[in-house]
């Protein structure tokens, strides 16, 4: 039995037609599905991160290091840096010329382990120049200071290597084979004296090998050194409103933006250390001289104004004005200046004068740190006094008072004064000769008490509690 239909194409064949329609319809569905595929593809973010570009030379370094599993972390870190997609790799920074003090032959290439500001300067010369003239670059130059004696002699030379040099930087010594002496390296202290004569290391803040600007802008980058009982900048910062707001809004900070797109008040709203001391504003450029906007030095026994302090103060005020009104800015600086002047006048100058006199009178030995009064005085200005001053500069009330002036006053009156008195009553008398010290010996007169109560009454508008 034959089915003749196939031989006569003009005869209607519903089944064939149906199948053809099926094919056509399914194909259209396929077309729609494939369009969906294209749409899904667009939605997906391809890759996301930038790929590192590895030149032929650098490939040699990377392949060998990866194969031998040496310092692989640094390489993987580099891959995420902004240097990597531009092909700025190992050789570009570690290349050294024969004859340079720290150059050595490494499997056929002349390299130096240390990458100093001189190397970074090839491209980043503006930053390097600014840094070189800053106080940061002088970090290791405390060889004649008390601190050096404290570290080296009182504590021990090993403390210098990891303790002092860890922040301040060491003087790096190169051994015969070009390698670096272990007592002077590794450290990325900010004032490190490098064999090529340059000072400092960019990696102190821009940690290698990712050299991330976002990381450098984080307060912790500064807080690594700018912390502690003698200058609690980061602690004071986190106590201050600025720090609180920063912590609460870190994800909105856009820390990775380039400086043209990272202006306070516009692109982000809560300052980090970098904001005030370095970063660009709408009218100022980035500066790697961290002292450019600082008008006081809070470091010594007695705080003084720095050179050109009006210009510096103006620059700092401009940063504040990015977010704040002029009134707030003026009043803050007034309170800060007044507080520092208080410290200077009431505690700093008198105590220093007393110690100078005692030394001249040979009541204390010239050797520092061998008598208790020297420790008390040291901490008075170096620790408590500085804490108070840094608290003032950062609007950190607890550091101004409890951790600052309270302890200054306490040690001044209960420790320092009696010790001075024991050594020389006249010096002690002069120590507390100011009006502000009179209360210690004389107490308060009836009128003074009355005035004080009246003041508080007015202050509290008659709502003073207690009796």
């Amino acid at each position, binding site marked *: *039995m*034959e*089915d003749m239909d*196939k*031989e006569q194409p003009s005869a209607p064949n519903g*089944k*064939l037609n149906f*199948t*053809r329609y*099926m*094919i056509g319809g*399914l*194909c259209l*569905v*396929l077309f729609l*599905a*494939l369009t*969906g*595929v*294209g749409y*899904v*593809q667009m939605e*997906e973010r*391809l*890759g996301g991160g930038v790929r590192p570009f590895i030149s032929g030379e650098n490939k040699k370094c990377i392949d060998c290091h990866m194969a031998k599993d040496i310092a692989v972390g640094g390489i993987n870190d580099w891959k995420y840096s902004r240097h990597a997609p531009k092909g700025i790799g190992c050789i570009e920074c570690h290349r050294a010329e024969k004859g340079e003090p720290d150059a050595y032959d490494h499997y056929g290439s002349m390299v130096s382990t240390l990458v100093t500001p001189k190397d970074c300067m090839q491209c980043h010369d503006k930053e390097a120049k600014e840094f070189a003239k800053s106080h940061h670059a002088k970090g290791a130059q405390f060889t004649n200071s008390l601190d050096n004696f404290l570290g080296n002699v009182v504590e021990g030379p090993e403390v210098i290597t990891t303790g002092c040099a860890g922040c301040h930087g060491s003087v790096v010594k190169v051994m015969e084979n070009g390698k670096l002496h272990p007592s002077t390296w590794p450290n990325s202290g900010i004032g490190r004296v490098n064999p090529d004569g340059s000072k400092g290391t960019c990696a102190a803040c821009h940690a290698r090998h990712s050299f991330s600007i976002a990381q450098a802008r984080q307060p912790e980058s500064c807080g690594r050194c700018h912390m502690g009982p003698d200058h609690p900048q980061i602690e004071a910062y986190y106590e201050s409103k600025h720090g609180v707001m920063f912590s609460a809004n870190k994800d909105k900070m856009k820390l990775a933006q380039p400086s043209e797109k990272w202006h306070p008040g516009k692109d982000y709203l809560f300052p980090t250390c970098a904001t005030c001391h370095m970063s660009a504003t709408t009218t100022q450029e980035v500066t790697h001289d961290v002292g450019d906007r600082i008008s006081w030095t809070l470091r010594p026994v007695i705080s003084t104004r720095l050179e050109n302090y009006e210009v510096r103060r103006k620059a700092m005020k401009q940063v504040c004005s990015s977010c704040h009104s002029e009134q707030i800015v003026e009043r803050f600086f007034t309170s800060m200046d007044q507080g520092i002047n208080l410290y200077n006048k009431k505690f700093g100058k008198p105590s220093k004068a007393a110690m100078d006199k005692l030394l001249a009178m040979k009541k204390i030995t010239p050797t520092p740190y061998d008598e208790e009064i020297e420790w008390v005085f040291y901490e008075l200005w170096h620790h408590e006094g500085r804490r108070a001053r840094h608290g003032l500069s950062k609007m950190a009330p607890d550091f101004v008072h409890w951790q600052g002036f309270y302890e200054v006053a306490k040690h001044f009156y209960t420790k320092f004064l009696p010790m001075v008195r024991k050594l020389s009553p006249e010096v002690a008398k002069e120590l507390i000769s100011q009006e502000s010290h009179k209360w210690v010996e004389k107490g308060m007169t009836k009128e003074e008490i009355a005035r004080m109560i009246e003041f508080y009454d007015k202050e509290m508008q008659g709502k003073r509690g207690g009796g």
Partner: protein
Amino acid sequence: MSTSSRPQTESFEHAAKNKSWIEYIQKDLPEHLDWWPYTLGAIPLTLFGLLVATGLMLTFYYVPSPEKAYESVEQITHEVYLGWFVRGVHKVSVDLMILFLLFHVIRVFITRAYRSPGELKWVSGSVVLFVTFAMGFTGYSLVYDNVSYWGMTVVTDMLGNLPVVGTPLLYLLRGGPEVSGSTLLRLYDLHTKLLPVLLGGLVIGHVVVVRLTGFAEVAGSRGFHAFYPEHTLKMGAIAVGFLVLIVDLVMIFPPTLGPPANPQEVASDVSPPWYFSAPYMWISLLPGPVAIWSLLGGAGLFVVYPFVDRVLSERGWPMAIMNAVVGIVVVGAVAVLMYLDTRM
């Protein structure tokens, strides 16, 4: 079976002479081929074509070295434009192809289509099946994730346990005593060069054999079913339907990657793809030699089954019922083994 008739009208005579090769193809094509269980064989064929196309495209990006393999697959999946799609189509097509191949085998088994004179259909088909499994194994090894690596190790180890041919075969596959870069390269060669050509040839051979030896009689099927255009159109519709299905499946289940190969440590959750799940459990449950010999024996029995059927039929065994029973038992056992694999 009836022969096809010559066209009666003059006007078709001329066309008929040119159409004689089509006539030859569809000579004696029985009606029952139009019924869906009998179209199952065409599906793996179309999917094979899709696999060859997508596989060829994947070779434009895949790198067969242990250092780069995983990375290149990751690149394809996450970075290359539509890479996830091409890889996804490839993966989904493998699963569907093997699934429908197994359906086809079951159908042929139940309907005993291998009866004389068509035993060669079955034998050639069983070789196709084994080579397909080999393609699945070699293909998955190329991803070089943990499953790939340990799968490579275990399977080549098993083959190494075969008597006489075991060790040379192990060395041949591995390119040495241990799994190494040579192993990956050889499996890549097998998967992209030798086996696809072999499989293509075998499939063509299988179809030719089917054509030449004809179709076993099926009750109720007496009419003539034209290959062109009926069957081709139907195959076309099924092919497009499967394309739609695959594209949808790829979008719902995009391809993924397991953790990269760790030669130091076997992860406890390494298990082979589903189509190897049952033999894998079989080997895990039974002691080594017993498992291997029973698998080998089973495979051998599978290949020569048409002849076993012939011998038993002559003895009066009711093979139709036997096959149904055997089919149910085997499928059931496989299902149980696969289930156990998910639990262990």
